[in-house]
C-alpha cells in the first residue's frame, strides 16, 4: 500500500514538472497575463483623473479585480490543450487517481501563472499609490487567495471541455464563484487601512482556500471523466 502512495506522489511531482516544462517553452501565456494586468493597472488611474485621494480608495480593489480578470483568458487553455492533444485520455490510464493529477494541475498553474503576479504585485501597489504598510498584507492576501482562484479556475476549465463557445461561458461561470475570495481578500487590506486586525478576513480567506483545495480536484476530475467519456 505504501509503495502505491509513494508512486502517487512521484506522479504528482512529475506532472507538475511536465507542466512547468511545457509552459516554459511557450511564455506567451505568462506574458499575456502580466501584460493584461499591467494594462488594467495603468488604465484605472487614467480613468479616475488627477485627484490622488480617489486612487488610494480603489487601489486595493483594482489589484484584486485586475488579477481575476487578467487570468481568465489563460484559464480557458489550462485543460483544453491537454484535452485536444489526447493527454487527458492518457492520464486517465494512470495508476494515480485523476483527482491527484487535477490537484497537480492547479498547483502547477498557480506556480507558473500566479506566482509571477504575486511577485510583481508590490510594484502594482506602488503604481497605484498604496500605503507602504499595506503592501506586505497585499502580498499575503493575494498568495492565499490566488491558490483558491486557480482551483476554481481549474474546475471552470474542466467544465467547458468539449463545449463550443467555452471561452464566453467560462468567465460567466467562474467569476461568481470567485466573489468570496475577492471580498475577503480586499477585506484584509481594508482592515489594515483603518488600523483594525486583518486576521479575521485573512483566516476566512484561508478557510475558503482550504475548502476549494478539498472539493475542486474532485469536481474537476469528475468533469474530465465526463468530457473524455463523450
Amino acid at each position, binding site marked *: 500500500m505504501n509503495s502505491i502512495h509513494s508512486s502517487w506522489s512521484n506522479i504528482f511531482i512529475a506532472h507538475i514538472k511536465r507542466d512547468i516544462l511545457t509552459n516554459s*517553452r511557450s511564455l506567451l501565456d505568462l506574458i499575456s497575463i502580466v501584460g493584461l494586468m499591467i494594462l488594467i493597472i495603468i488604465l484605472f488611474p487614467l480613468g479616475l483623473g488627477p485627484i490622488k485621494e480617489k486612487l488610494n480608495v480603489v487601489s486595493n480593489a483594482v489589484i484584486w479585480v485586475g488579477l481575476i480578470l487578467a487570468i481568465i483568458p489563460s484559464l480557458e487553455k489550462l485543460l483544453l490543450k491537454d484535452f485536444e492533444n489526447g493527454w487527458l485520455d492518457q492520464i486517465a490510464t494512470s495508476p494515480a487517481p485523476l483527482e491527484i493529477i487535477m490537484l497537480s494541475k492547479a498547483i502547477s498553474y498557480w506556480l507558473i501563472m500566479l506566482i509571477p503576479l504575486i511577485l510583481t504585485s508590490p510594484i502594482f501597489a506602488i503604481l497605484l499609490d498604496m500605503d507602504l504598510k499595506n503592501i506586505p498584507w497585499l502580498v499575503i492576501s493575494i498568495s492565499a487567495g490566488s491558490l483558491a482562484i486557480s482551483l476554481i479556475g481549474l474546475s471552470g476549465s474542466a467544465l467547458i471541455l468539449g463545449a463550443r463557445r467555452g471561452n464566453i461561458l467560462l468567465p460567466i461561470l467562474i467569476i461568481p464563484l470567485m466573489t468570496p475570495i475577492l471580498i475577503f481578500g480586499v477585506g484584509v487590506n481594508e482592515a489594515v487601512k483603518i488600523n483594525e486586525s486583518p486576521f479575521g478576513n485573512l483566516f476566512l480567506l484561508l478557510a475558503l482556500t482550504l475548502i476549494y483545495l478539498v472539493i475542486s480536484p474532485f469536481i474537476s476530475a469528475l468533469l474530465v471523466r465526463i468530457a473524455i467519456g463523450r
Partner: protein
Amino acid sequence: MLYLEGLTVQRGNKIVFSNFNTIIKSGSITLIKGKNGSGKSTLLRTIVGFTPLEKGTIKNDKKNVFNNNEEWVNNLIFLDTKTGLSKDLTVIENLNAWSTMKGWSSNIENLTMALKSVGMDKYADLYISQSSEGLKKRAALARLYLSFINKVDFWILDEPTNELDKTSLVLFKQLISKFLKQNGTIIIATHDLTIVEDQFNILDLDDFKKQRVL
C-alpha cells in the same frame, strides 16, 4: 480472456451498439473493422473505461475490470488517434512524461531503447511541433516498447498505422509479434487488415449490426 457481455453503449441519444457480446482470448490479436461511424473507437474507449456502459460487463478472467479500475488501466496501454503528445516538448521528454505518469521508472536507457524500437532514436530531441504526422505517431508508438519492461497485458490501439511508412510498419509488426509471444492481448481498430501477418481474429461491427436487424 476478456469477456465482453451484453454491452450497451449510448452516446447522446444514439445507441452505438446494444447487447454486444464477444470473447477476446489472451495472447491473441483482434482487429475491429467496420464502416466510419460504426463505433470502433467507441468500443475501444468503452473497454478502456472512458465511455460509460449503459448495460453489460467487461470481465477479465471472471473479474469485472471496473471494480478495480486502477489495476485495469495500469494493465493496458491505450493509443488513440489523438496521441497525447505535447507539442511544446521533445520526443524523449514526451515519452519520459508518459512513462512517469504511468508510475514506471523512466531511466534514460529504457527510453532510448523504446525510441530505437520504432526508429525514433535519431529524433529524440526533436520538438513535436516540428515533427510530421508519421513521426508523431511513431513517437507515440514508442510507448508500446515499455510494456516489455513493465507489466502490461493489453494493448488497445485505435488506427495505429494510419500515418506510418513501410519501414516503421515493419518495426510495428515486430513489436506486435514480440508482445504476442509474451502472451499479451492486442485489440486494434483499423481499416487495414494487412497490418498483421500472424493469426488474428476479426471483429466486424457491421456484421454485428446486420445480425441485430435480422
